[in-house]
């Protein structure tokens, strides 16, 4: 394990740029934490089902130059004619962007760029995670030099989605990105992320998200990276009074994709909604953890997952909610439904409730099964052959996740992606 840590700490060092004294200090702190905690193992409760063996076997050479035109072309192809208020492309750790004018006053890109608030964002948020003992979070802080950093002003509402595309042009590298998204009071934003990494590389992405009073974030991520890629993500979301965060994740790709999201509902009436779809095939390993902490009264959280696994795929879904003493009026709902399509697929679900308050309504449900035989017979008795009936039932099984997307164009777009993936799987 120390060998892996060593590899990762020194990977891609040629990208190291001057980050300023303040940030440099933080990094030294972070480095201490990395060495203190090391990388997670199967003995860590949150990594119980996800092994790092694969990472240990790999090498992570330094990066090379990249082809800007090719990246832009690829990104535009991915986005197609979706409505857009801007496009941010990360090619490895390099960044390209083209934004609508309304973004002019709120965006800075590089952590090292003090003039646009990059450093400020970092110093303010970075140590919030100090309670975590996950080495990857600290590794990210020691290594990341770029990320999407913005501070959406009060009352600002941007209708069309901001697209963030993740690509790479070289094989087998390790990349670190660090995002800081801040929505001030009464602001509203939609972000759509498209993760299309390829090759046998490693992506380590960290996001710090702050939602001000009455703000709303619609955040949609399509993860369709190549079948050898490893993607590790950590998100930390802090929500103020009456803010609403709607997160939707489509996990369609990657060799190993693990995402851990921690949500703090710090003030009354804050709401968090998570909808997740894991479609795994071949040797994919997809692992989603969401921990929501209800810290104030009358907050609500909902987590909903659908998982369909074929081939040798493995799915892990850990939904957790903790309601602190005094957080009365909390409403917690979790539901996970999973379907195994093959004898070699495997599903692990862990829905947790930890409740220290009175007057709470909390429930979770988790099911694992296969296609309902009665439903299959019903469809076939109407003339649908086996394959068609299976596709229709699995499509129906996953439909309520995609249906949560309100914008028609985005929903239609994701529906197509889901259908294509299911056709491959069935």
């Amino acid at each position: 394990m120390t060998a892996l840590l060593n590899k990762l700490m020194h990977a891609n060092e040629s990208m190291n740029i001057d980050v300023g004294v303040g940030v440099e200090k933080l990094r030294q702190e972070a480095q201490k934490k990395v060495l203190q905690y090391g990388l997670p193992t199967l003995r860590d409760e949150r990594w119980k089902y996800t092994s790092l063996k694969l990472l240990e076997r790999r090498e992570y050479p330094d990066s090379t130059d990249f082809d800007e035109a090719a990246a832009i072309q690829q990104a535009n192809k991915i986005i197609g004619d979706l409505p857009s208020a801007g496009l941010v492309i990360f090619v490895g750790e390099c960044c390209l962007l083209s934004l609508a004018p309304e973004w002019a006053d709120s965006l800075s890109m590089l952590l090292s760029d003090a003039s646009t608030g990059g450093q400020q964002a970092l110093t303010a948020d970075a140590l919030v995670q100090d309670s975590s003992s996950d080495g990857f979070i600290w590794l990210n802080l020691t290594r990341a030099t770029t990320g999407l950093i913005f501070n959406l002003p009060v009352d600002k509402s941007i209708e069309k989605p901001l697209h963030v595309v993740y690509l790479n042009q070289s094989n087998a590298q390790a990349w670190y990105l660090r995002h800081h998204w801040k929505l001030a009071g009464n602001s509203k934003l939609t972000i759509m992320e498209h993760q299309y990494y390829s090759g046998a590389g490693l992506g380590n992405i960290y996001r710090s998200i702050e939602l001000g009073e009455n703000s709303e974030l619609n955040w949609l991520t399509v993860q369709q990276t190549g079948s050898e890629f490893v993607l590790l993500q950590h998100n930390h979301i802090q929500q103020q009074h009456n803010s609403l965060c709607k997160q939707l994740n489509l996990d369609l790709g990657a060799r190993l994709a693990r995402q851990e999201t921690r949500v703090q509902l710090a003030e009354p009436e804050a709401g968090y909604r998570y909808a997740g779809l894991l479609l795994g095939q071949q040797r994919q390993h997809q692992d989603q953890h969401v921990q929501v902490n209800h810290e104030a009264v009358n907050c609500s959280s909902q987590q909903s997952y659908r998982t369909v696994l074929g081939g040798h795929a493995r799915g892990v879904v850990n939904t957790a909610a903790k309601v602190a003493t005094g957080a009365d009026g909390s409403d917690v709902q979790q539901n996970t439904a999973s379907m195994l399509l093959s004898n070699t697929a495997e599903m692990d679900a862990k829905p947790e409730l930890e409740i220290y308050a009175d007057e709470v309504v909390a429930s979770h449900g988790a099911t694992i099964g296969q296609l309902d035989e009665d439903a299959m017979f019903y469809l076939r008795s109407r003339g649908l052959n086996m394959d068609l009936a299976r596709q229709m039932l699995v499509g129906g099984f996953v439909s309520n996740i995609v249906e949560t997307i309100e914008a028609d164009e985005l929903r239609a777009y994701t529906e197509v992606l889901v259908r294509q993936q299911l056709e491959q799987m069935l």
Partner: protein
Amino acid sequence: MSNAQIEQIIESRYKHGFVTDIDSDTVPPGLDENVIRFISAKKEEPEWLTEWRLEAYRHWLNMTPPDWAKLQVPGIDFQSISYYSAPKKESDKPQSLDEVDPKLLETYDKLGVPLHERARLAGVAVDAVFDSVSVATTFKDKLRDVGVIFCSFSEAAKTHPELVKKYLGTVVPTSDNFFAALNCAVFTDGSFVYIPKGVRCPMELSTYFRINAINTGQFERTLIIADKGSYVSYLEGCTAPMRDENQLHAAVVELIALEDAEIRYSTVQNWYPGDENGKGGIYNFVTKRGDCQGDRARISWTQVETGSAITWKYPSCILRGDDSSGEFYSVALTHNYQQADTGTKMIHLGKNTKSRIISKGISAGHGQNSYRGLVKVGKNADHARNFTQCDSLLIGKQCGAHTFPYIESKNPSAKVEHEATTSSIGEDQLFYCQSRGLDEETAVAMIVNGFCKEVFQKLPMEFAVEARALLEVSLEGAVG
């Protein structure tokens, strides 16, 4: 629990001491191989059993206490415990009920414990007890007629060594967990049951009727074997609080059900929970596991856990045989500063195996109640089926209710369903009851009883009635 409280607990243990008189039958506090050899020799155990204990001890030395997750457990100094003390002399026991703590007697009264039982429960010297020996003797005769073996573990090790040797440690291996390993090394006594092929045990077996049951000590060991096509219902514990001086209880229960056999195991646990400030109370760290070895074997655990300061137990089933089934029905109540971390593991290995889990947790006062469970479906467990329902009820603002289920499936034809809810007693429910003339305490008891109904229905009838009364007593002072 604050440090001061922990210190108090530890201190009080030292003050009274585990060993009251120093005679040749008692070992001083501490644990090493010699102590284990001493225990084994005292029990006149065969060589293989001594070796088995020693092997467990060597495992234990390399183990660490469990990661307690949600439990606050004061550190336990295992070298300060005395691992063997001979049964108390009759002259040292209370000679009549007049010498027994009046609080205890008051509780018996509330629970409606018959007079002649109170003395036995309170540990009054046997010759002073209005005796139940004659009842037990008739009982033993009946069992002997059908070939059921029901005796103390020590007795079984002597009279049925082949059965003990064949099955001991096959369900809970010596290296299973920290407390199980400790139990294997130092267990003092417990129950042994063997039901022969095709025999339906004619009555509920209860520790109550087991002669020599008194003073089995803090490390109890139970082994129940149901041979092909047999049936047994076993009751452990009783609703009345037992007087007990041992703070740490680490029992092990192993059940083995062969082809077409059925074992129903019911527990009512009401050890001393500590006082309303969380002082004192038993630590109850139990390993209970059943092995459905044969096809169509069935094991059912039912438990009502209201006692102990800390309860840590997960009665589990290994569903090895095809078409075998496991059940777990549980009510766990924590009040004042009690903590309970309980649940079950259902390991589906055979085809068409079924399991059902119904867990009801009630938290009041500063009580913390966790359900922790595992449903695991192996690759070959075609058409395995599990249903889990776990509900938590909160009474008051200082308590906690937690649910930590693990659901792991490797078989596409298996169907696993898990549901959980957490809620507080509804104001409107309370108001409705009160508007019909019930006081708040009665109303709460009624609502809680309704909440637990599904589990109580699984208890043998007399037990269910007692369990209901017990719940009411345990909830006293929970509201208002």
